[in-house]
C-alpha cells in the first residue's frame, strides 16, 4: 500500500492516468469518487469537442461546416457519455458488477483525461504544424485515444471487480446497450413530437372555432 494517497480530489484523475493498472484499485480503496470533479471533466470534454471543431488549424480541419451548430457536438460528447454510464451500470448490475452508477460515472470521467489533454495539444499543434508534419498530430491523437481506452478498460475492471475477459465482454455489451438506448430515445422523441403536434393542432382548431363564433 502506498502512503501518499491522501491527495485532494482533483489530483486523482491525473494519478490514475499515470497508474493505468493500479490506479483505479486505489480509487476504489480510497473511495475517491468525486462527482464534482467528474462533472468538471465531462464539461472539459464537451469544451474540447467544440474547440476541435472551431479552433483546429485550417490545414487539418477536414469537416468544415458553413453553419456552426453546437447540438450535434453536445450529443456526441456529453449525451454519449451519460448513455455510456447508464448503459454500463444497468448491464453490469445484472452481471454481478459492484459499481454504483455514481462510481461508474466518476471512473469513466477520470479515464477521459488523457484524451482531453491530447485533444488540447492537438488543437494547439494543428495551428503551428504543416501538412507534412501531420504524422505528429495523428500520433498525438492516437496516443490519447489508446491511453483513454486502456484507462476505461482498467476502470471498468476495478469498479465492477471483474476479471479481464469479463471486462472486455461487458464493454462490448455496453456498446450494444448504448445502441439500444439511443434507438429507444429517438423513438420516444419522435413519438412525443407527434403527440405535441397533435395536441397543438387540436388547440389551434379549437381556437379557430371559438374565434369564428
Amino acid at each position, binding site marked *: 500500500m502506498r502512503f501518499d494517497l491522501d491527495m485532494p480530489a482533483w489530483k486523482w484523475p491525473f494519478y490514475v492516468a499515470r497508474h493505468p493498472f493500479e490506479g483505479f484499485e486505489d480509487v476504489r480503496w480510497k473511495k475517491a469518487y468525486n462527482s464534482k470533479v467528474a462533472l468538471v471533466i465531462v464539461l472539459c470534454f464537451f469544451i474540447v469537442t467544440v474547440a476541435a471543431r472551431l479552433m483546429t488549424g485550417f*490545414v487539418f480541419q477536414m469537416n468544415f461546416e*458553413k453553419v456552426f451548430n453546437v447540438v450535434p457536438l453536445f450529443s456526441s460528447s456529453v449525451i454519449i457519455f451519460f448513455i455510456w454510464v447508464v448503459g454500463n451500470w444497468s448491464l453490469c448490475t445484472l452481471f454481478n458488477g459492484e459499481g454504483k452508477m455514481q462510481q461508474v460515472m466518476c471512473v469513466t470521467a477520470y479515464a477521459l483525461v488523457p484524451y482531453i489533454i491530447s485533444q488540447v495539444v492537438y488543437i494547439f499543434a494543428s495551428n503551428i504544424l504543416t501538412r*507534412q508534419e501531420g504524422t505528429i498530430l495523428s500520433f498525438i491523437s492516437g496516443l490519447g485515444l489508446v491511453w483513454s481506452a486502456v484507462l476505461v478498460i482498467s476502470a471498468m475492471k476495478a469498479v465492477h471487480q471483474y476479471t479481464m475477459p469479463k471486462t472486455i465482454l461487458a464493454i462490448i455489451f455496453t456498446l450494444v446497450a448504448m445502441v439500444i438506448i439511443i434507438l429507444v430515445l429517438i423513438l420516444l422523441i419522435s413519438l412525443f413530437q407527434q403527440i405535441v403536434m397533435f395536441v397543438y393542432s387540436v388547440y389551434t382548431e379549437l381556437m379557430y372555432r371559438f374565434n369564428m363564433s
Partner: protein
Amino acid sequence: MPLFKKIGAAALAAGMAVSCLTLPAFADEAYYGYNYNWWNEPVPSQNGYVVDRVVTGVDLGIGTLSEPNDMFVDNATGDIYLVDTNNARIVITDENLNSAKVLDTFTYTDEFPEEKSIVKNTKLDTPKGIFVTHNGGETLLYIADSMNSRVLACYADGRIFFEYTRPSNDLYDADISFRPDKVVVDNAFNVYVVIPSITNGMVQFSREGAFNGYYGANRVETTAEVLQNAFYSLFMNREQMRKRARAVAIEIANCDIDDQGFIYTVTSSKNADKDVLKKLNPAGENIYLNMGIDQFMFGDLPLYYGGTSYASTIDDVDVDSEGNVFLLDFSEKRIFQYSDQLDLEFIFGGEGSQKGLFTSPTAIENLNGKVYVTDGRKNTITTFKLTEFGEMVHGAVEMFNRGLYQEAKEPFEEIILRDSNYWFAYIGLGNAYYTMGENEKAMDYFYMNSRGGYNRAFKEYRMDMIREYFNIFMIVVLILIVVLVVLSKVGKMIKKKKRAAAGGDGNAV
C-alpha cells in the same frame, strides 16, 4: 420628420432607378450564370459565354436539318462539317455559318474500287459521327456510317479512298455488331471508332484498315454486383458463372483529340463515378490519374439538386487549342467549360426553347473562342461567344497555368471586382501573393479556398516568424526552464518539511 421622408423617398427612387438599370443585364440571357464555390455549392456568377446566333438549316439554304448528331470544326480552314443524320448527308459550311455545301453521294474510284468494298453503297445510312484531317493538300473525311456498318473515308469531293468495316479477326467478339457512332483519327492516321455496344474501349484500326485491338477501356465500377459475383465465383463453376450477368465497364460515349494527339473520351452513364472524362496517352492510359484526379465530379454537383444523389450525363467532349475542355451534359442541357487543369471556369446553356437553351444537345465544337452546339430536336446550331469577363478569366487562368502567378495578379483582382463569387480568382491571388513573398496575405486568400495553397503559404510564414523571433523565443524558453527548476526545488523542500512535521505527529500518536 418631413426631411427624413424626403431623403427616404429620394433613396428609394435612386434604388429603383439603379435596379432598373441593372435588370436588363440579367434579362439578356436565357440562363443565369453560376459557378461552384469551396463547399461545392452553386453560387451566382457572371456569364462567360453568351448566345451569338442560332442557325437553322433553312438559314443555311439547304432545307431543314434532321437530328444532326455530330459536328466537326476544322481548325486549319475554319470549315464546319455537320452530320445531318436523318437526311443522310454531310453539310459543309464556313466558320460564320453563311454558305453551305451538301455532300450526300460518294463515288468509288480507282484508289478504292467498288469490288473491294463490302458495303457497296454510295449513299450514307444514319451517319452518326465525322472526323476531318489533312494529308498534304488533301482534306480527308472519316464518316461513321452507322447503319451501313462502316467508317467511310473519303476526300472532300466525295471520292472514297477507304472503308473501315467490321474486323473479321478472332479478337473481335462475334456477338457484337459493328455500328460506328463516333470516330477519331490520330496524327499517324490510325482510326479510333466508338461503338456503343462495346465495353472494351474504342476499336482501333491502322491506316491500312487492320484491326489493332481495343483502345482506352474504362475501369469496371465497384458496385455491389461485382462483390456479389466475386462471392458466387467462390463456389460456382464456370458454366454457372457464364449465365450470371457479368459486371462490365461502362462504354465510351464520345471522344475528341487535341492538338498534341491526346484522345479524350467520355462516358454518359449516370452511375459512373470514375472515368467520366479521360485524357488518354498513346498507350491508352488515362493521364488525369497522374494529376491526382481519380473520382472527379464532372457536370453539376449534388448540392445543385439539394443534396440528392445525381450524376450528369456527359455526352460530348471538346478540347480547344489552349487545352480548355468543354463537356456537354445531356441531362441538364448545359455546357461545362474546364481549364486544362480541370478547374471549372464557366457553365452555360440549359433546358428550354429560348435562344441559348437546348432540348436535345448532341455535339459541341469550338473555334477561336466561339462555341458551336447542335441540337438534335430543334435542328439548330447555336453559337456562343466569349464575354469580356470570359476573356478575362481565360487570360488569367492561362497565365496562372503557365506559372506566371505575379502577372496574373491584376487580371484576377479585376475578376474579383466584377464577380466576388468567382472562386478560382482567390486561389490565383493567393498564389500571386505567395510568389511575391507576402505570405500572410496569401494565407488570407487561401483560407477556405485552397488547403494545399494555405499549407505552403503557412509554412513560409512560420519560417519567417521563427527567423524573426528566434532570440526572444529562446530567451523565454530558457527563463521558463530556470523558473521550473527553481519551483520544483522549492516545492520539494516544502514537502520535506511537511513530511517531517507529519512524521513527528505520527510518531506521537
